[in-house]
């Protein structure tokens, strides 16, 4: 879990995970300037801190390197802003153990999504269209932060995109290395808070150019 200035919700998100019995929770505080670090510190979780903000991709890579050192077999990405449902974790992890998938990607459009603004929906759908076109896949959701992996996947995949473009990089590398992946329906609930905190629609342009650059010029 990565957190940047999430003092309002991070505690309740960790609580919801602990209440479901998840003990190995890794939180990367991405240079928060509010009380996020102090709040997370009180919980029985692994806490890593970026001294300055480096972005979601960079934070996930830091967390991943820590997890690989620890030797956990499976990694689940979970947002700290409260829009993910902890009940979905089991649904994501199950195909990894039962069906030997390497990666499971949460799809809000296969599952349910509440309070999704129209503008965000348009941007997401465009992102899905271009990603499918560029990477030759048929996904229903591409920038959903809820996903699970066999940890060994990250022996090959390393995030070099520090910011939100990491999600496209991830997809590109899943395809490139031929990992077995599956989409799993998940439930996302947007709140006024998570919309405000999440990535801006305008950032999609930046991500689009990075996708083009990575696909054709990298």
């Amino acid at each position, binding site marked *: 879990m990565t957190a940047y200035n999430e003092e309002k919700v991070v505690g309740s998100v960790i609580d919801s995970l602990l209440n479901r019995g998840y003990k190995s929770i890794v939180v990367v505080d991405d*240079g928060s300037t509010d009380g996020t670090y102090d709040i997370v510190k009180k919980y029985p979780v692994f806490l890593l*801190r*970026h001294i*300055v903000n*480096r972005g979601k991709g960079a934070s996930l890579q*830091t967390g991943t390197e*820590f997890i690989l050192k620890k030797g956990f077999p499976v990694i689940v990405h979970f947002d700290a802003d409260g829009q993910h449902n902890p009940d979905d974790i089991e649904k994501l992890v199950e195909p990894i153990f039962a069906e030997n998938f390497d990666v499971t990607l949460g799809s809000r459009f296969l599952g349910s999504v509440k309070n999704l603004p129209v503008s965000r929906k348009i941007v997401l759908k465009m992102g899905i269209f271009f990603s499918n076109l560029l990477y030759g896949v048929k996904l229903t959701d591409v920038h959903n932060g809820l996903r699970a992996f066999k940890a060994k996947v990250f022996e090959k995949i390393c995030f070099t995109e520090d910011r939100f473009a990491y999600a496209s990089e991830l997809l590109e590398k899943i395809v490139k290395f031929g990992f077995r992946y599956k989409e799993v329906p998940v439930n996302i609930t947007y709140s006024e808070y998570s919309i405000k905190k999440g990535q801006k629609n305008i950032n999609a342009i930046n991500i689009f150019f990075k996708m083009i650059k990575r696909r054709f010029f990298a």
Partner: protein
Amino acid sequence: MLKYQIFFGIVVVLMIIRHSALLKKGNLKLRRYIVFLIFWFALLLAIIFPEETNKIARFFNITRGADFFIYISIMVIFYILFKLFERMEKIERDITKIVREIALMNNDEDKDK
């Protein structure tokens, strides 16, 4: 000599002096200094002998020497921009590496306590 020639001529000479001072202080690499020097001297010649630039321009089928210099300037500016972006991205990547290393190291230290 026209007013603009005097003004731009002084600016170019000042820039050459400034770059020379930077080189002397060790804040500018010799290779980069030579590139700057060639650029400033070319500009100085173009300012003193503007008619001569027309000849060069016509060689490239451009009517006026001033237009030729504008095209060249735009190309140079874009090249510099590209190099700056490239360098900035590298610095960003390096900062991330350092921040990550500190985060992982601090966690190890916390564990040792």
